[in-house]
């Protein structure tokens, strides 16, 4: 039984990101992994080695797609070529859901290839939700939007980030990819309590969780995905699981990538939190009676 209405994939446990340095190990050793998350854009190509590797992975594993350039918050309409390629890949992978970020990153057809924060206003939330619906209708799979880590806030904002996230997903009627590391990074950069964030989002919409490591600089934290998950993030993760129920969880490790076994071992640390939840026969996050 699903833990919540937007997490109907509860048999998905702990996954790891499919990354280039691990290709050979995975294809040769065929390690037991519940599922892999791929960066969609790396496989939205016509042919060649990326698709060959992907097809071999798909023969053995379940794959979930995660995008980095749909830019739901950009004013531009979704690029038609981008959508078509994305849909082609969705058909290839049979991903049960699709995620991308709650951010902007392109303007007037120019791309920053970054996940830029948005001003948290009602009009921006409306625009973003409309774009999410448009993409979902085109690709025909459920969409989860991920909260990004951020280093800047705008005077223009009218609400907190978690209020904005809630507003967007309610209006778009979509899921949330809850990145607890991003919440922690942003909480330190913007001086808010990360548990407030977790407590005030619609838990029944959380379809997937990201965990990752970050780097501490003198004046701010940077989301670097090049470390093991730090203790405060595990605490947030434990709290998130309590609130959301058993949720598909993925460890991101994108830079200074260690061996496959080390990454997998780090990811499996999440088991004890998911296990606790399962052991309690799960108290699913309920959709509010009057949403």
């Amino acid at each position: 039984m699903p833990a919540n209405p937007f997490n109907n994939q509860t048999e998905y446990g702990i996954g790891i990101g499919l990354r280039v340095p691990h290709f050979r190990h995975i294809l040769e050793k065929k390690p037991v992994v519940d599922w892999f998350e791929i960066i969609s854009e790396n496989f939205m190509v016509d042919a060649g080695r990326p698709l060959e590797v992907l097809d071999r992975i798909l023969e053995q594993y379940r794959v979930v797609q995660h995008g980095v350039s749909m830019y739901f918050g950009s004013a531009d309409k979704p690029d038609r070529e981008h959508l078509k390629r994305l849909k082609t890949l969705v058909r290839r992978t049979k991903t049960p859901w699709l995620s991308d970020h709650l951010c902007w990153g392109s303007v007037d057809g120019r791309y920053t290839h970054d996940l830029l924060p948005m001003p948290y206003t009602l009009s921006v939330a409306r625009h973003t939700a409309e774009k999410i619906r448009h993409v979902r209708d085109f690709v025909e799979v459920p969409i989860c939007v991920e909260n990004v880590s951020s280093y800047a806030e705008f005077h223009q904002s009218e609400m907190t980030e978690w209020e904005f996230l809630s507003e967007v997903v309610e209006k778009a009627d979509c899921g949330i990819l809850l990145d607890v590391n991003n919440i922690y990074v942003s909480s330190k950069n913007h001086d808010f309590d990360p548990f407030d964030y977790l407590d005030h989002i619609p838990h029944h919409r959380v379809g997937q969780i990201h965990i990752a490591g970050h780097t501490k600089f003198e004046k701010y934290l940077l989301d670097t995905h090049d470390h093991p998950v730090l203790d405060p993030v595990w605490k947030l993760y434990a709290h998130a699981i309590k609130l959301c129920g058993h949720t598909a969880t993925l460890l991101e490790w994108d830079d200074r990538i260690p061996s496959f076994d080390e990454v997998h071992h780090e990811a499996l640390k999440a088991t004890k939190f998911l296990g606790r939840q399962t052991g309690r026969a799960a108290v699913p996050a309920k959709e509010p009676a009057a949403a």
Partner: protein
Amino acid sequence: MAEALFRPLSARDGLRKEWSDGRSTASVAAEFVKPNSRLTSVERLEIYARSYWFRVLDCLCEDYPGVRAILGERRFMKLATEFLARFPSASFTLRNLGSRLPAFIAEEPAFSGPHVALAADMARFEWAQVVAFDGPALPVLTREDVIAAGPALRVTLQPYLTVAEYAYPVDQFALALKKTALRGEASNALAAMPSSRRKPRPRLPRPARSFVAVHRQDNMLYFKRLEPEAFAILTGLGAGRTLAAACAAALRQADPGVDWAARVRQWFQTWQGLGWFARRGASGRSRRERA
């Protein structure tokens, strides 16, 4: 915010002090970015500007290691910065970021100093590798197709194949760079950021006309030297000429003492075996270049 990102960084890798309209960047940033207790508005904006430039410059470094070796670190960065300032990414994928760099090098010789011709050649050669890595492949021409058509055969070259003439032996130079000029994975793979380590500058090649095909076989990249007549035949076939017409044009001034019929047969068998030919009329665009 986008304007701040797309402007090249200062010599100290920070935002420039002066905005495009003459105001101070600090005052412009303060208008829309909130400061916090540790960072000013402009410092927060600067985190994003640095991230943008480091990412796109790294991408060009990875796609053009040969050009980088020819020009040296400082001159290459100047070229890449100017190129990106004029031609920011216009695609959702970083794969296409450097597509115009070969033309830019030729059009703006001042950035390549005394090495314009060599740098332009190497840029074309390296872009051909991007194309060969994940460019589309069309159904391969079969032996039966060839027999049925006879001398009236028309073919389409595979879109991932580039045959080009160079003023320098770029393929040999690439090998001299210990094959680091050949990429192994997708340029937009987030896990594959290039190293910023400085390498000793190699001895630059002297001019020597060469004809090279860049292609893939079993999804591995290869380049293959071509004889001038072979290049001319491939070019003719790529332009839509029949096999007979392409051979006639290519061999018009060839050495009459050579058994060209046998040689062309051998070439054709090799090319056919490599899968370079697709059926005429299959969708896609063959790539043919001339220096």
